[in-house]
């Protein structure tokens, strides 16, 4: 299979500060890959470089058509939920846009919230709309930067279940940045550990799909968590 994202010798420098050092990475269509690491390890910088938001050295190949979900400022506060989702659909005609927005709202179970503004929603709802907005133009790749980092434990777990249930029916490739190791294990096929500006380890997740909440209590999950923590501590 040909990889959908290829990164070769990627380095990112902010002034005198080296944020990422000589990263090589590949990712295949339909894969769910998480990137974990401590704060400041370079996880978000990696996603921002792939998206082309920041200058970098090296080579990045990715599809032109991609989506991005941020942790904060996820939505435009001056647009209603429906307008936020519609914003990425300017290539469609009016009727097609209306249909697509309705379809996405239905998918995230928020049809009745179409006319609300983001400041009238809960944190979990904002993130659901943010995912709908990113998915509406039907991107091949979805980049997610700690999308659930600001949510409470319970809401976060419900959002994870929900994300998997949506992802199962798509063929999207997801790159997911998080500092919650359990979250990475529960969601991904593969986990990359970043530390000190480098990719220090790669872990394959053994759980089959579809996954249910029970995986969160499996012994293998704890073993894997230990293993990943070791990579982070001992590097």
């Amino acid at each position, binding site marked *: 299979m040909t990889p959908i994202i290829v990164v070769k010798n990627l380095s990112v420098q902010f002034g005198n500060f080296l944020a990422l050092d000589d990263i090589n990475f590949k990712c295949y269509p339909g894969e769910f890959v998480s990137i974990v690491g401590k704060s400041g390890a370079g996880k978000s910088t990696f996603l921002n470089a792939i998206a082309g*938001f920041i200058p970098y050295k090296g080579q990045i190949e990715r599809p032109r058509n991609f989506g991005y979900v941020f942790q*904060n*400022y996820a939505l*435009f506060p*001056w647009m209603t939920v429906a307008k936020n989702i519609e*914003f*990425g659909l*300017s290539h469609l005609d009016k009727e097609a846009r209306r249909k697509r927005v309705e379809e996405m709202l239905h998918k995230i179970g928020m049809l009745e919230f179409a006319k609300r503004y*983001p*400041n009238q929603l809960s944190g979990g709802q904002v993130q659901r709309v943010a995912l709908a907005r990113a998915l509406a133009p039907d991107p091949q790749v979805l980049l997610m930067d700690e999308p659930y980092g600001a949510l409470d434990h319970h809401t976060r777990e419900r959002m994870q279940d929900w994300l998997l249930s949506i992802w199962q029916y798509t063929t999207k490739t997801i790159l997911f940045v998080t500092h919650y190791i359990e979250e990475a294990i529960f969601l991904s096929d593969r986990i990359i550990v970043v530390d000190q500006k480098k990719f220090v380890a790669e872990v394959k997740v053994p759980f089959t799909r579809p996954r249910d909440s029970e995986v969160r209590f499996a012994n293998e999950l704890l073993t894997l968590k230990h293993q990943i923590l070791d990579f982070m501590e001992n590097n």
Partner: protein
Amino acid sequence: MIAISDLILTNRYTKWFQTVLPVIVFLSLWEIVSRLEIVNPRLFPPPSLVWNALLEWAEKGELWRDIKASYWRMLIGYFIGGSLGIVVGILTGRSRLINLSLSPIIQVLRPMPPVAIIPLVIVWLGIGDIAKIFSISFAVFFPVWINTHLGASSVASIHLWSAKILCPSKIRIIFNVLIPAVLPSIVAGLRTSIAIAFIMVYVAEIAGASSGIGYQISVSHLAYRIDKMVAALFVLAFAGALADFLFARLIQATFPWMQADRNH
């Protein structure tokens, strides 16, 4: 035990009463103090005389004419100064080059008290409406510019990044993302400027005019009509408060999202 907060503001009528009562008390005290000649009533005319002066002013249709004249000058000056402030603020806030070339000039002019330019403006443009509108525009420009500039230069890059991914059209990004993102700062600048515009309209009118609320204060001063001066001051204050109230209502109705965010 009954808390004090239960005793006040219990219903709409008491709330209304509590707002109006201090005004009634204040006016009554003023009336009494002036009538009993505790203070010189020629210098501090009682509210009843001020009210009569206001009625007299209104009877000849002059009150309405003066209010219209002042509001008209203020609105045009406010519109010109405000629009320029918004446009220049977005340009200096978003373009490094424009910022480098324009900001030093603006920053030198900004700390200047705008009323200080009025004598010079009279020399240049005379005492007609153009001079007044110019002075008001000049004063309104700076607060609108600085607020817009700061807002435009600190738009969350995440909003602009999201917009870039989702929409290929730069024009749409400017109108649908950049300007709405700066809007709360623009509104803050515009609101500050309402009071400034009223100061300027008053000062410009006492410096030379043939109509307007400021002109009436100036004329009443010469005629030693203190009752009318006080009446005109109240009209000016009321006009300013009304403009501010209408502005706040308009913003609330037009941009309902511009309330304190719960999430970000």
